[in-house]
């Protein structure tokens, strides 16, 4: 072990106390030995016992926190969610190549024709006919463009991070469809993460007093996956809730505030 390595490990206690500069902190996280990391974790646990003070926050904080989390997507369990538009674009190239080799339909594990559907799922699918999927090569090219646009539009938005995590998942798959009004939508999903995202190019604003609402439809029926509005030329959303195996992703137009179950015919339906 070099002197340099030992000096990194010496930062364990200061790391536990948050007493490092961002540069020192990054260096510890990158270079510290497993023993020093374990020591830092243990000492950080101890440090939390120092803050025994209690103070009642104002009641408004509770309301404001609960309101904020209702609109905030959660990150996947892995630590390596990409943050920037760059890895997002780079990874979309790789998955795009993959998809163009096998064809999107064929690469979907749960979308096979022989799979048995439950009665509720059949019912849902009678109304939610999956849309014709456009070419895979075009899909990855469009995604690249949209990915860059999102990067500039959202900056360090946590939504972009969540989006990046779905797009760059090792098992990410995608389907591109054209909506009736000519909007091109790309649905990207990761079965491993149980998450999906939709990128729209050219989605117009919902009619007055209405909103877009995303849905997951599985054997148990449709599940609310969040309401959203169009945002300029490119709209990107990460669906709320969990994508179950073989679920259908859909979007409807609903009264403002959203509905408990879809009340109109979907403008987008994609099988995962």
């Amino acid at each position: 072990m070099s002197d340099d390595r030992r000096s990194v490990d010496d930062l364990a206690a200061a790391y536990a106390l948050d007493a490092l500069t961002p540069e020192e902190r990054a260096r510890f996280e990158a270079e510290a030995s497993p023993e020093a990391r374990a020591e830092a974790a243990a000492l950080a646990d101890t440090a939390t016992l120092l803050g025994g003070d209690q103070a009642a926050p104002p009641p408004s904080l509770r309301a404001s926190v609960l309101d904020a989390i209702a609109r905030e997507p959660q990150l996947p369990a892995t630590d390596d969610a990409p943050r920037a538009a760059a890895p997002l674009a780079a990874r979309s190239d790789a998955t795009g190549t993959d998809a163009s080799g096998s064809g999107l339909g064929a690469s979907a594990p749960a979308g096979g024709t022989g799979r048995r559907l439950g009665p509720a799922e059949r019912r849902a699918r009678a109304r939610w006919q999956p849309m014709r999927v456009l070419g895979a090569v075009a899909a990855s090219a469009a995604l690249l463009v949209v990915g860059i646009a999102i990067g500039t539009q959202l900056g360090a938005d946590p939504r972009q991070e969540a989006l990046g995590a779905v797009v760059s998942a090792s098992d990410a798959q995608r389907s591109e469809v054209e909506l009736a009004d000519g909007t091109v939508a790309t649905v990207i999903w990761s079965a491993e993460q149980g998450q999906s995202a939709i990128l729209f190019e050219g989605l117009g604003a919902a009619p007055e007093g209405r909103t877009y609402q995303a849905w997951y439809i599985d054997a148990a029926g449709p599940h609310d996956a969040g309401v959203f509005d169009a945002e300029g030329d490119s709209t990107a959303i990460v669906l709320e809730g969990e994508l179950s195996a073989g679920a259908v992703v859909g979007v409807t137009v609903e009264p403002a505030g959203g509905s408990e179950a879809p009340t109109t015919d979907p403008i987008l339906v994609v099988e995962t």
Partner: protein
Amino acid sequence: MEIDVEECLVRAADGDQRAFAALYDATAPRVFGLVLRILVDRAQAEEVAQEVFLEAWRQAKRFDPSRGAAISWLLQIAHARAVDRVRSSQAQRDRDARIGIRDTAVPVDVVAEQAEVSLDAARARSALGQLSDAQREAIELAYFDGLTQTEIAERLGAPLGTVKTRMRDGLTRLRGILGVTT
């Protein structure tokens, strides 16, 4: 009151907003107490506490119950956020001004501002009292004032290596006194 904070956080990781509300109710006084102690200013403490809970919601799936207690995980997020805020220069100036006001105020006001002094806080203070003055000073400057190790060395006029040793020996001793959270 039997609220299982671990259970609440694990359920919140599945997107359960009601479990997260229960987690908030069980932990908000601790989180706010820590953030307020570091930032001193209530308005800023409220902003940071909101960031902390939002961060906890976003990161909930990354909480690993086998690696520590939920309250410890949450307080580590709170501490890191509060320290980030106090290091931004305006926040630091505001804090200095407030501490100036607080320290010239009559003792009754000081007691009022410290809010409820819990058993945990009393225990922590007693444990800190068992450290050497030099160890306690280094740890308090880091943990409650948000100074970096380099700033602490400058403030104390001590070599950086000495400060590192004081923090490490002091924290290790505290670990022995206070035990483990889980």
